[in-house]
């Protein structure tokens, strides 16, 4: 009996020690991370965004009747901020941070014959949902580059069908997505390891949860391609990395 007690006490102690260690390392690593923040601007006159004629899909045309939709290739805010730019760490990530997949499951929605969001950043093997909020069918047809880690597929999604779950197997910036039924629908999924961000209408972004260190941060825009710069991230205060793309 005594031996049993001893064993139980030892096991409990070990377990408590284990949990304690796990908790302490977790909190330490959380406190020691830094981040990168910045603004991405467009120098020059932004190219004209063409209005989209959705008359072939009456429900969508009606939805946008009062506020016509344009292409979203280059969207510039009032202060010159560039929207829909993917910012990610292209060099310097440690294996631990690179392999962490965010626990959130973002949604790629089809609404008003547009992709919401127009550009989405995902981690490798991060699950995402494809949803259809429209009262009619879409087909979702991503076209990864040939012979890369990801492969083309094409799925129909009639109205009222539940969202379906997808993942991408490898890094790729960025996978174009189209709907063959509505040829004006275009979007991009950028698949990269590690923390990422997509700029808002002011061209601003923030990347969190980066351990202190030296990194190369890359900004990708669908019309202007990629730009990179080297940054040093310290614990606590986020480092600033601004980018400027030249209008063509």
């Amino acid at each position, binding site marked *: 009996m005594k031996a049993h007690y001893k064993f139980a006490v030892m096991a409990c102690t070990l377990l408590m020690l284990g949990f304690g260690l796990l908790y302490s390392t977790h909190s330490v690593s959380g406190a020691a991370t830094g981040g990168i923040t910045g603004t991405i601007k467009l120098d020059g006159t932004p190219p004209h965004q063409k209005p989209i004629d959705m008359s*072939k899909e009456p429900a969508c045309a009606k939805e946008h009747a009062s506020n016509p939709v344009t292409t979203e290739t280059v969207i510039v805010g009032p202060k010159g901020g560039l929207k829909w730019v993917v910012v990610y760490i292209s060099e310097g990530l440690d294996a631990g941070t690179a392999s962490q997949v965010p626990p959130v499951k973002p949604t790629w929605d089809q609404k008003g014959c547009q992709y919401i969001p127009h550009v989405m950043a995902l981690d490798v093997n991060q699950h995402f949902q494809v949803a259809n909020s429209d009262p009619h069918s879409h087909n979702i047809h991503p076209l990864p580059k*040939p012979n890369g880690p990801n492969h*083309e597929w094409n*799925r129909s999604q009639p109205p009222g069908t539940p969202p379906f*779950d997808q993942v991408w197997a490898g890094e790729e910036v960025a996978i174009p997505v189209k709907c063959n*039924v509505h040829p004006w629908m275009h979007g991009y999924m950028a698949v990269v390891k590690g923390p990422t961000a997509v700029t808002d209408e002011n061209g601003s972004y923030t990347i969190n949860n980066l351990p202190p260190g030296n990194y190369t941060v890359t900004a990708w825009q669908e019309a202007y391609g990629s730009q990179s710069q080297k940054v040093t991230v310290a614990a606590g205060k986020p480092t600033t990395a601004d980018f400027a793309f030249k209008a063509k």
Partner: protein
Amino acid sequence: MMTIRTTCLCILLIAMATSIALAQGSGISSGYPTPRNGFSASEQVGHGIYLRYCVLCHGVYGDGNGDTAQFIDPKPRDFTIATFKCRSTPTGTLPLDTDLINTLVRGVETTNMPSWRPLSDENRHDLIAYIKTFSERWKTEKSGEPIKIPAEPPVDIASIRRGHDLFQKVECWKCHGQQGHGDGPSASTLTDSKDQPIRPYNFAAAGNDARFKCGVTNEDLYRIFMTGLDGTPMPSFADVIQPNDAWDLVHYLRTLQVNRRGEENRVLKAAGGPAALKSAGDKQSANHPPAAPGEIKSPGGAN
């Protein structure tokens, strides 16, 4: 004299034997080339067949850029991307060898790809083995799991009606048109994955021997819309149509082949023709009989 003669004969025989051996080694004279360039014996034979029959359209590099490709519409398949239209496997996955062999045997209807029935079974296997050397994907990935197809229920007017409702619900008509003429509102803007214009299938165009790109039978038709034709605008409906309901759609689609003398058109005519479908509604779908025991309900693996 005899000795000189014998010696000459011996030298001649040795010379002949050596040249035959050399010729065989180089894969020229024997007709059974020995493997080279890291090819297996089968791939090597397939390479020879490819150079003779396929290279003009599909190109030396298998990228679909052969000399005649510029005159061909739709364009020849690019084997380097390992994306195939006719599969028994889900969208996004590699086909089975048998899928590729079936494509060789029947050719691809409405395209320039002829039937290669005259080749021997063995040669077709060799050709497929060679075609698979064009993409690394075949080395790193397994073929997809074929979709499960339950037994076909009998054709009756209720099934055709349910298929008609499904055709409306999943909006096949957006591309194929309400009558299946390939003239739906989106038909004119469709492009394939290489941005080449492509036309949706016109169900009504063919005669009694109506064929599809990926087959002729009801089961082939089932497979076409459940797996989708990768590389084209035709998506997979496996996520949205239940396996048994898919047979209803098959039965309805057959009635769009108005010139075909099939069971579906006979049943529809007996029920009063296309007007009999107008009364179809949700009530019919609700009456759909449950799957018989042992029938498979899952549409197969996703992605």
